[in-house]
């Protein structure tokens, strides 16, 4: 394979991989504080994209995106307030079913609010035909936006969890909920914050990828499945793992297209993932006991 073609595949792999990584990080934030895999995570991306598209008719693009992120994070808080808090001593399966139910409800409401048309945000800079030549490979400036936003998000989260009181409290909840409560941390509020944070990150990612991948009422499901895959591959709850897992899945997909028909793209990447999972059941960077805990 010539170098420029190789680079082209690698770039598309990194772009998709960074989107998956963001979805996986959204999964991880909620998983860490609550032990829930939030199957409505993909719906946050869809809601963010859809809201921004509707709002961009009335206001400049950056403002519309900001508003969409804020609105989606409020929806995240409402989900925690109305549903997650109502669960009394739930099992993991209970919580999975509730979030699956929520994802169905959000998707169907979106269908009735917006309809089934495919929409997209305008390109942040340039348009469909603008491209930048990078060592022989051509990329759209929007790809740089996606990569930039992903990178900034990861760095921001790293600082947030390390240096802010809220972030540290959330990490305390992650390691031991009861102990955190005994230390005077309002664990309920931390769960709300984690839902808001992962909704906001999802919405931002949804806006960033909208010009490239289009937004539709049911586009969240496939992203959620990929994000879930990546989160498991990287080791649940591990953000570095999510980034590495995202890159692995993105690359596998990109290069599988070069040898096999496009229709089998998902099948190939997931088959390889399963093989990795069988060899190392806790995921690439997961703690060994994590795979044994949290049963149904």
């Amino acid at each position: 394979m010539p170098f420029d073609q190789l680079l082209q595949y690698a770039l598309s792999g990194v772009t998709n991989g960074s989107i998956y990584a963001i979805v996986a990080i959204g999964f991880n934030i909620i998983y860490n504080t609550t032990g829930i895999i939030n199957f409505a995570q993909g719906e946050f991306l869809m809601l963010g994209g859809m809201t921004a598209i509707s709002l961009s008719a009335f206001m400049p693009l950056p403002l519309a995106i900001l508003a969409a992120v804020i609105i989606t994070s409020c929806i995240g808080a409402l989900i925690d307030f109305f549903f997650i808090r109502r669960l009394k001593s739930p099992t993991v399966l209970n919580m999975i079913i509730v979030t699956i139910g929520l994802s169905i409800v959000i998707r169907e409401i979106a269908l009735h609010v917006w309809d089934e048309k495919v929409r997209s945000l305008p390109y942040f800079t340039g348009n469909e035909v603008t491209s930048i030549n990078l060592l022989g490979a051509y990329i759209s400036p929007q790809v740089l936006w996606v990569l930039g936003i992903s990178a900034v998000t990861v760095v921001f989260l790293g600082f947030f969890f390390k240096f802010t009181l809220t972030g540290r409290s959330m990490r305390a909840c992650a390691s031991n909920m009861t102990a955190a409560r005994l230390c005077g941390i309002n664990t309920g509020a931390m769960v709300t914050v984690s839902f808001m944070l992962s909704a906001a990150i999802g919405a931002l990612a949804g806006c960033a990828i909208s010009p490239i991948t289009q937004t539709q009422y049911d586009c969240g499901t496939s992203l959620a499945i990929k994000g879930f895959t990546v989160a498991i591959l990287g080791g649940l709850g591990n953000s570095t793992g999510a980034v590495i897992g995202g890159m692995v899945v993105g690359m596998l997909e990109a290069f599988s297209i070069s040898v096999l028909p496009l229709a089998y793209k998902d099948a190939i990447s997931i088959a390889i993932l399963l093989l990795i999972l069988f060899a190392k059941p806790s995921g690439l960077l997961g703690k060994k006991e994590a795979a044994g805990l949290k049963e149904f």
Partner: protein
Amino acid sequence: MRFKKHLPVAGLAAAIVIFQALTSLLGREYYLTQLTMAAYYCLVILGLTVLMGYAGQISMGHAAFFAMGGYTTAVLTTPDLSTSAHPLARLAIDLGLTVGDVNAFGDGVRHLSPWVSLAVAVLLTAGVAFLIGIPILKLKGHYLAMATLGFGIIVYRIVLGTALFGEADGISDLPPFGLAGGLTVSGDPGLRVQNYYIAAFLVVAGMVLLLNLIDSRVGRALRSIHGSEEAANAMGVDTSWYKLLIFVLSAVFACVAGVFLAHFNGGVGPSEAEVMKSVTYVAIVAVGGMANLWGALAMGMVLNYLSLRGYFGSYDELVFGGILIVIMLFFPEGLLGTENLKRLTGAAARLVRGKTAGGKHGIS
């Protein structure tokens, strides 16, 4: 004891007959079509209930096993073998494995007998479930969910992207499945009642089989695995073997349902293998009360029937999602979980006692 065990099954059989009689009397036999389909989907749900509720293993890929049944029979029985020069086709005709039929143009054709395709589908599904079960069932919790989900996605992508399986269009024009004694599984509206009873018979038979299974030595072993796998292992239960066994069994249930529904519908499409289908099955098991075959059957019939009849129109999925949330919020054990059952039977007992003791204070 025996009586107590057989009573609910007899009740189910009676309910099946009464419903059919009612629809025929009222001239609403078309209700039976969706009910027949719902019954086949319930077979999948029953198999999954034993896997999830009793063995404690989640499978988010059961639609794949269902699709394997439907697609195997569709691929094997649709081609017309009478004009084929393929040695295998000739061999099948010589061995008497084919059935004659008349196609839409009135020409005589020969199809492979659906009995053969049923056998192939069951063997294939059992083999695949066995092979993927060995590594998959070593995983637990979210990782097991992910692995079974992954398997489901792979099967979905394969049926969606392969010309042999008709890609997005699926396969249509399946020949009718002639069972013994003139019984036929097909979408012919004249055979509605017959098909309803065939499906109902399969559900009752499956129910009896599973009820006996969970009441047996295997069932006790399964429950011990659900309680604590390590403890079961220490007690000498071959946990991985039992888990594999039940995984294969529930896959075969899904496969058989797929074969019959494909012949009933006269076609099969990739939507049967979709991830959302698998998720729906899991959700119905949880909502029915996990380790409760009756709850799963009841929820499966009601939810499938309502959604197949398009009762809520375009709000169908919204209602389904809403039901999931509401039941999990207010009945975390499922609608017919043991606690709720106790509460219900307790309330019923109080009601009856109040009526006999209080006389006029009872609810009139």
